């Protein structure tokens, strides 16, 4: 049986290649937060408390657009609904662990760590295999906090004229690069994008993110149902 420390470091090594794209995300977040007018302390607080790139950037985007707190919080919740899927998949591997481990693992259940540890958890029979996820999550934690800090420091030096707020849509385009290749995903992307753009001024309380996401998911539900039936016939 491997020691917990060995498995932890296996997690660190496995997740490392996925950390390269996290660096620009963290920098952009730090720079933009300072740009919008958050103090260095609150910016760092966001990365420590929320610890989720997409959530934090959505928070900045809606906050600078003047959305209400309730809308910001529910939009962040909508962005995070994908974690329910990760949790459901991981739960079968950690169901025998003590609650204190589940509490810790949940803090580290982020996209990159899940992507790498999902494979490991399926293959491994070790009792302490959850250390792989903790290793991957902790690695991402260190990268996220340090790049946020670096972004905060750079934020004071980078002129607003550079138009770095354009990095927000670019980072989200980058997250979707694999989805642009699939026709069903592409349809969902276009539906959501159109609803958000057309609804930007029409939908009250800046709830366009939530409305567009629901429209996109509804489209996905219908499309997958229709296509699924076709395949069974």
């Amino acid at each position, binding site marked *: 049986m491997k020691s917990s420390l060995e498995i932890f470091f296996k997690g660190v090594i496995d997740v490392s290649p996925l950390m390269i794209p996290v660096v620009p995300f963290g920098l952009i977040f730090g720079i933009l937060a300072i740009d919008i007018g958050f103090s260095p302390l609150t910016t760092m607080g966001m990365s420590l408390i929320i610890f989720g790139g997409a959530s934090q950037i959505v928070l900045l985007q809606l906050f600078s657009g003047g959305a209400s707190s309730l809308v910001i919080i529910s939009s962040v919740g909508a962005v995070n609904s994908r974690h329910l899927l990760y949790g459901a998949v991981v739960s079968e591997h950690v169901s025998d662990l003590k609650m204190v481990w589940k509490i810790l693992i949940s803090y580290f259940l982020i996209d990159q760590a899940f992507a790498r540890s999902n494979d490991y958890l399926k293959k491994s029979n070790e009792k302490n295999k959850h250390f792989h996820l903790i290793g991957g999550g902790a690695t991402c934690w260190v990268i996220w906090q340090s790049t946020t800090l670096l972004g905060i420091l750079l934020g004071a030096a980078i002129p607003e004229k550079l138009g770095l707020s354009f990095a927000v849509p670019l980072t989200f385009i980058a997250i979707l*690069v694999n989805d642009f290749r699939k026709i069903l995903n592409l349809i969902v992307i276009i539906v959501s994008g159109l609803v958000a753009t057309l609804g930007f001024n029409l939908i009250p309380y800046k709830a366009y*993110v939530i409305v567009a996401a629901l429209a996109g998911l509804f489209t996905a539900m219908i499309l997958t149902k229709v296509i699924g039936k076709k395949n069974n016939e």
Partner: protein
Amino acid sequence: MSDWTLIFFCGAITYLTRFLMIAILKKEMFNDRIREVLSYVPSAIFPAIIFPAIFLDNFGQFQFEDNPKILAAAIAVIVGVLSRNIIATIFSGLASYWFLIFVV
């Protein structure tokens, strides 16, 4: 609501989505159908940020003419689809944008 209260609530809801399933599920309870639909969450949510940030100006009005963001975003999508590389996607978009606003 103060900034810190807002951050706390955003953190709480983020954590809750991560914790909920781990805490309550004993074995696999999600069927394939729910899983399949949930896999579309990124495609359903991120365009809601992407499209308005590209096509609308700072006042929420449509901006189709004289909008370097459209071309720069299109270049980023093409580079992203071809390279599947996150960093290449972001930087090709930023570089095109800077080229269009500072050079052209």
